[in-house]
């Protein structure tokens, strides 16, 4: 029998000071949720989904609730899941109005012969799978709104500020 392990991340970027503590707490909660699955007979897939649901619910992170906004002020989310035993995978891209995109990705893996569904097709598939659509506002955090106001019209600056090299030096 193998010793179960789970590792999670909440994104590699320049963390704003006001969410450092929340990010730390959020990743710990996600790892705990996944580990609980593993130690109660769940599969690696179950553990990954459980951990990601926790992270998607936490507005400290850039997925699910708290997702960044597009230039048009909308939420477009991507998610993927993969099973290392079968190499089966499922993914969605540009889905909107979904609380847990990872749930839809898992349905793509388990209920279709496809690996990736995008946009309206992905949302239509989620509806067919009985996954509830949620209002846009329920996914939008105050931080996402202020970030968009700060960077609107200058996507290059967003990227430059979010993904600074640790070795580059900065103010």
């Amino acid at each position, binding site marked *: *029998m*193998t*010793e*179960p*392990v789970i*590792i*999670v*991340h*909440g*994104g*590699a*970027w*320049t*963390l704003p000071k006001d969410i450092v503590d929340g990010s730390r707490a959020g*990743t*710990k909660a996600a790892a*705990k949720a996944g580990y609980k699955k593993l130690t109660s007979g769940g*599969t*690696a*897939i179950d*553990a*990954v*989904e459980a951990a*990601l649901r926790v*992270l998607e619910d936490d507005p400290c992170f*850039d*997925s*699910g609730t708290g*997702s*960044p906004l*597009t*230039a*048009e002020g909308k939420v*477009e*989310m*991507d*998610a*993927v*899941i*993969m*099973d*290392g035993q079968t*190499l089966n995978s499922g*993914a969605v*891209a*540009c889905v909107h109005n979904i609380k847990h*995109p990872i749930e839809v990705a898992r349905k793509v893996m388990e209920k279709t012969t496809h690996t990736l569904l*995008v946009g309206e097709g992905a949302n239509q598939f989620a509806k067919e799978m009985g996954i509830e659509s949620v209002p846009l506002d329920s996914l939008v955090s105050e931080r996402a709104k202020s*970030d*968009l106001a*700060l*960077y609107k019209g200058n*996507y290059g600056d*967003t*990227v430059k500020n*979010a*993904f*600074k*090299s*640790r070795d580059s030096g900065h103010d």
Partner: protein
Amino acid sequence: TTGAVALDKNGNVAYGTSTGGISGKRPGRVGDSPLIGAGGYADNDVGGISCTGHGESISKVVLAHQVITSMRTGMDAQEAADKALANMASRVKGYGGVIVLSRLGDVALSYTTENMSWAWAKKGTLHSGVSPGE
């Protein structure tokens, strides 16, 4: 971006990633996350990985594939992760991070950005961090 890699008691590996992208992105823009081999991979014969960071850079170098390929040839997970991220910085000036599990349960994490929040659990013990050195 958020991600997870797990190894269960039967030796099965899985990974997942979920993201809302980057603030102010063009509608329809998709990064590395849903692209198998770029934003992540899982193979019971090797291990699993979830990537995070600048999606276009990660896609250009097929970051997860680099790490998995290095591990498949015998490199340990930490060295494979460090090497792939250094290559991404060098080749396309792109920055990000990865979490990796080997098929034997070895844990590795690496990032070239200022921070990456992470946590892992094994043998009932939880470890976490957000900054280099933790």
